[in-house]
């Protein structure tokens, strides 16, 4: 039996066993859950090699599963994050209800993500895509009644995307008589013009939904924030990347062959940029860490979309690199929020403050992740951002780069809000008993944060598989021209050597740290955060002077004209209009038997009157 079959049966079997084991014992369930992911990861990386494929057919449709170098980039995200999140969620979900259900759907969504990456044909791609949708949907609504709205939004938009994709798939199938993605790629240049325009649009609708692209993003903040944090790290980190995965394929194989692809690329790139800007602005406006991170995910995906849409090798490189980085830092951050939620029971900035001394490890990993998110060197985020800017500038997207930069600069605002809101500010008696999260939750965060640092100094570790994957997509190799193990180059020949820079930064940092902190610790006295100079007043213990309401009010006032109109309100208006229309329409079923009989008669009369035009 082929290893790919074994992989899938292992994961499916694991999912079902986990589900069943829930009835037997919690420990067994947890062990099975973690083991399944671990075993499949090990199996995937040891036994399944790039280029492996299996053929089979279902009711006459030839299908193929396999893995190529491009899929391997994303499998890195999926499985890596999956392993981390599995450990995390064992601890995070402890004591909650319906865990069999949760783990089952968790595993199914992982399976389907792997399936998406390993599908070489459109039908299994679609099947796995939909499996991913519903399994993640079931997790989104896991938290109960108050998240219904987000669940419905999510499934509605996902289905919109999925149906667009289905339409595209059947169009391709009808035209090429083959379901292989490879065949579609080869046949695309010979499609009729209408197909050439519509297929990318339809596919991009599908992928844009998952990647939370601008007009289709409205589900994302709610869905991300409302699912359990253990899953959100996967949801935002890996699942949304499936949209990027598909988008890149679309851009590489389809948009390239459009008669005039500039407008297309520009539109999508600008949509990405607007997504980034609006996501950032809304993230700044949030008071709940989950919502903040959710909007921030939307914004980050906006950068990635822009990178994909611009489509030069460097831009593609940056998009892929950012994808990996986003998975890492957003995974860490969502996990940190989960840890805080677990330990304190709330994720609102104005409820919990000053956790830095209670949860130092969570703070450190969040700090590293936030620095990476903000794109500040020497962490991984910078590498991606640098490549993105350089690629935009080199490919003459001048205004676009400003837009992206604006989003990126404004991102500091919410970055700070996140750190300040939870960890800094005044310590309160209410949270005095808060302990650091269990080791199973802290370790994944720390590992991922460390990885961010490593990838920031040696981006080549990640860029190497990305380069291989891009070669699969038809790019020529970028190693040496755009990057080396720890160096970055742009198309004009400018370069950033990260290693000496990082040594310099790290060296000075350590120097001053030792000078100021270690020396200072001995000489300075620790006082509580109640001991502050507030006009001689002594804040009482129950008084919390931390500034958390209306945090960025002035800034939001400045940008309010842009934020005034929400996409959601348009959708809601549309939905309400449709519902009113439906209500009006269903009055056809008046409830009176005679009316129905009259309908019958009228129907006959109409058919008789128009019989010639109908059945001529």
């Amino acid at each position, binding site marked *: 039996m082929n290893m790919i079959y074994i992989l899938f049966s292992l994961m499916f079997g694991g999912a079902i066993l986990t589900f069943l084991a829930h009835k037997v014992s919690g420990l067994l369930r947890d062990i099975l859950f973690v083991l399944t992911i671990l075993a499949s990861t090990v199996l995937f990386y040891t036994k399944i090699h790039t280029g492996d494929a299996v053929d089979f057919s279902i009711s006459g449709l030839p299908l193929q599963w396999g893995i190529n170098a491009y899929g391997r980039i994303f499998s890195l995200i999926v499985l890596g994050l999956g392993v981390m999140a599995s450990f995390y969620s064992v601890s995070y979900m402890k004591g909650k209800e319906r865990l069999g259900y949760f783990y089952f759907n968790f595993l199914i969504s992982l399976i389907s993500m792997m399936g998406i990456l390993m599908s070489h044909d459109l039908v299994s791609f679609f099947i796995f895509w939909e499996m991913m949708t519903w399994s993640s949907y079931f997790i989104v609504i896991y938290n109960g009644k108050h998240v219904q709205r987000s669940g419905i939004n999510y499934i509605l938009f996902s289905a919109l995307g999925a149906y667009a994709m289905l339409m595209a798939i059947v169009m391709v199938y009808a035209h090429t008589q083959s379901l292989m993605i490879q065949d579609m790629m080869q046949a695309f240049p010979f499609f009729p013009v209408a197909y050439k325009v519509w297929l990318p649009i339809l596919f991009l609708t599908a992928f844009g939904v998952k990647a939370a692209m601008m007009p289709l993003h409205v589900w994302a903040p709610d869905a991300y924030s409302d699912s359990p944090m253990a899953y959100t790290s996967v949801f935002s980190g890996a699942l949304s990347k499936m949209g990027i995965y598909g988008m890149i394929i679309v851009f590489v194989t389809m948009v390239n062959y459009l008669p005039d692809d500039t407008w297309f690329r520009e539109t999508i790139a600008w949509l990405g940029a607007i997504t980034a800007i609006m996501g950032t602005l809304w993230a700044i406006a949030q008071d709940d860490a989950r919502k903040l991170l959710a909007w921030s995910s939307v914004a980050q995906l906006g950068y990635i979309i822009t990178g994909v849409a611009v489509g030069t090798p460097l831009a593609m490189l940056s998009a892929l690199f950012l994808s990996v980085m986003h998975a890492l830092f957003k995974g860490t951050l969502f996990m940190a929020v989960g840890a805080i939620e677990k330990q304190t029971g709330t994720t609102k900035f104005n409820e919990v403050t000053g956790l830095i001394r209670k949860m130092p490890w969570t703070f450190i990993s969040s700090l590293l992740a936030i620095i990476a998110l903000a794109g*500040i*060197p020497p962490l991984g985020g910078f590498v991606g951002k640098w490549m993105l800017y350089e690629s935009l500038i080199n490919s003459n997207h001048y205004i676009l780069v400003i837009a992206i930069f604006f989003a990126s600069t404004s991102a500091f605002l919410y970055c700070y809000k996140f750190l300040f809101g939870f960890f800094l500010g005044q310590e309160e008696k209410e949270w005095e008993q808060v302990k650091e999260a269990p080791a199973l939750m802290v370790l994944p965060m720390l590992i991922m944060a460390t990885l961010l640092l490593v990838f920031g100094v040696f981006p080549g570790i990640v860029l190497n598989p990305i380069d291989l994957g891009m070669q699969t997509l038809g790019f020529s190799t970028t190693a040496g021209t755009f990057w080396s193990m720890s160096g970055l180059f742009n198309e004009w020949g400018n370069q950033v050597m990260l290693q000496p820079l990082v040594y310099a930064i790290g060296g000075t940092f350590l120097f001053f*740290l030792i000078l100021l902190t270690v020396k200072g610790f001995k000489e300075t006295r620790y006082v509580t955060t109640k001991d502050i*100079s507030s006009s001689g007043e002594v804040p009482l213990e129950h008084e919390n002077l931390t500034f958390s309401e209306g945090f960025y009010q*002035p800034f939001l006032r400045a940008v309010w004209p842009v934020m005034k109109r929400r996409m959601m309100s348009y959708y809601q208006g549309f939905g309400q209009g449709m519902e009113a229309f439906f209500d009006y329409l269903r009055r056809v079923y008046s409830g009176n038997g005679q009316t129905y009989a009259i309908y019958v008669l009228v129907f006959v009369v109409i058919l008789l009157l128009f019989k010639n035009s109908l059945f001529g």
Partner: protein
Amino acid sequence: MKEILYYTWGAIVSFVVAFSVGITYMGLNRKITARVQNRYGPPWYQNFIDVIKLSSKKTSIHHGVMQHMGPAFIMVTSVVSLLVIPILNGNKFFPNLNFQGDLIFLLYIMVFGPLGMALGAGQTGNPNSAIGVTRGLSQMAGFEIPWVMALVALMIQYKTTSIVDLMNVQVESGRWLMFSSPFAFLAAVMAMLGMFRYAPFDIVGAPQELASGPMSENGGKYLFVMMSAGSVFAFAKLTLYVDIFMGGADNLIILVVKTFALYLIPMLYGITSPRYRTEQSVRWFWGWPSFFGLLAILQAALF
């Protein structure tokens, strides 16, 4: 090995220069402000005295480890940006790390410090600090836009992201970029007003309202580090402006002259200005300066 020695040497020298020149500038700022206000003013070396006094404070307090690390962050930023910015034209004693840095790296490393300091300020638990930080970050989101626009205009005009290349362009052609790309210069200078946080953009640390904002819990050694880092950073920024707009400098004296000339702009503008509210200043930066930035980009893209 020898190279590393060179780097270290260059780093130390440029740090000392930047520190002393920066502190002097701050002192001169006070002096000039006083003269403008028809006062005698403190001596030009007043800030040296202040710094020494602050460093010699006997006791101080801390609210947590981030309060120690905040100043370290901003110091690192200042030093690293100083290292990345070339001090002199083609001088082998100041190679620093500029051949490895570029403008985008610089842009990002420059925000490292404010963020770190903001963390330090946040740890103190003083509400004024946090308010000041939010204002500062908001303002940063404002002035970064014209600043980046100016830089992008230069980058696309000269097809490089390296500061050294920009300097070489000016040396070779003999024309300063402030004349050949006037709009970019205009936008950059207007952004500089925000960067220095002098009036009218000094709402961040408004002493009467916010009790000096982010620094309100930091006295003594913290303030010493912050002041010296600020001075170094100011000098680094001015050097950067000189490098990319005014053709760099061949020796330290010319550098000091040019930087001081440039420094006069925010200083004098600040002395004669009242104060903007946060959203006013943000909107100001997104108004004319950004317009000039846009013109600069257009100029670069079209000509």
